[in-house]
């Protein structure tokens, strides 16, 4: 586990009678930018909060930089967390917030935060309340980077920003990741952003991890196949079917490859990240899948 920045085993969190996260096993490698995607209520915020030590698991364990979240100043100094609403003291100015950062963080480096904000032209003498959402997000990020963390946990950092502010924010993020060799885990719904910025994907749905891995490897492992509606017996049986749709004559399936597809009756195409994410999000539970497999294998060619 030495090369995982974040790892969990059987991690679960229950609120009253509802599981927010169930048997969650993830490994996020050091130095990547990992995207946490999934429908609302899938457990993304819960996972980030568990990793940051803001809440405690009901069962299982999570390790961040090799340790379970704790109150040790040395561990806390290495972990940056930015909540979706970017909680800043609105009546303080950027300057005052930077001063606070210096007092509250043992490994604070003023220039990292200040240079970043000054190069973006953000007024540090104004109350935060007078700034735009994009500027506030940048201040939040700068404060988090100023403490020189080794891992950054961001909960929907760009969800409320306009496209330009989003672009600026993500630029700052990718630059900072490169300069400081950070690991970043961010939750987001915006697949186009993820495709550019992230190189690792963790997909949560129905409180469980449905898919995780390096994005290029995941894309290489999946294919669209389409052809006349026919049995999957034999030709596709060795592959895992992720999604399928059928018309009277035509079948289109997304499969996770388990070797090459040789059957010439299938037309095979590459899968995009958005297709992949949607297919896994819409995927039925494992029990339903087994039924689908059976049903599909007895479908006969129609005249």
């Amino acid at each position, binding site marked *: 586990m030495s090369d995982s920045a974040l790892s969990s085993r059987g991690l679960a969190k229950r609120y009253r009678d509802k599981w927010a996260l169930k048997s969650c096993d993830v490994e996020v490698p050091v*130095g*990547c*930018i990992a995207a946490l995607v999934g429908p609302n209520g899938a457990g993304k915020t819960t996972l980030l909060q568990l990793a940051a030590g803001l809440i405690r698991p009901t069962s299982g364990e999570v390790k961040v930089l090799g340790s379970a979240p704790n109150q040790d100043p040395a561990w806390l100094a290495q972990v940056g967390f930015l909540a979706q609403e970017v909680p800043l003291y609105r009546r303080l100015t950027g300057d005052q917030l930077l001063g606070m950062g210096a007092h509250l963080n043992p490994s604070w480096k003023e220039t990292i935060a200040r240079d970043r904000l000054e190069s973006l032209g953000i007024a540090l003498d104004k109350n935060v309340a007078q700034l735009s959402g994009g500027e506030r997000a940048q201040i939040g990020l700068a404060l988090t980077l100023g403490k020189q963390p080794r891992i950054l946990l961001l909960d929907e950092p760009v969800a409320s920003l306009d496209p330009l502010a989003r*672009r600026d924010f*993500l*630029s700052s993020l*990718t*630059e900072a*990741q*490169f*300069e400081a060799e950070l690991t970043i885990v961010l939750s987001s719904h915006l697949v186009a952003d993820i495709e*550019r*910025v*992230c*190189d690792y994907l963790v997909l949560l749905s129905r409180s469980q991890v449905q898919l995780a891995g390096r994005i290029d490897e995941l894309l290489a492992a999946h294919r669209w196949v389409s052809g006349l509606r026919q049995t999957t017996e034999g030709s596709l049986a060795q592959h895992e079917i992720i999604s399928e749709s059928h018309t009277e004559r035509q079948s289109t399936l997304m499969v996770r490859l388990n070797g090459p597809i040789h059957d010439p009756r299938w037309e095979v195409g590459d899968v995009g990240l958005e297709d992949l994410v949607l297919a896994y999000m819409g995927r039925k539970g494992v029990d339903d899948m087994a039924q689908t497999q059976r049903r599909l294998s007895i479908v006969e060619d129609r005249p």
Partner: protein
Amino acid sequence: MGDQLPPVKAVVGQLTINANTVLKAYRDLEREGLVESRSGIGTFVLRRPPGPSPHTQMVLQRGLDRWLHEAQDAGLDLESIEALVRGTIYSAMNEGVA
């Protein structure tokens, strides 16, 4: 040749893409022998990629331009032209021509 590629950080910031993607692209170029990385200084272009010279490409493009006009004159719209090109490339590849 001899030109310097922009530093990774600049590419990352300007294009807003993952640094690992840029590093991988630079490594691929280096492995192909097209660029050379001088540590602490930067990455420099060594030679052109293999393939036809710009002049040959221009001649080929002119031929394609002529064909496009012919196709348009024959009443094909953009979609039909694309379909025809794709179909021709596909069958040529299957015959082992291209």
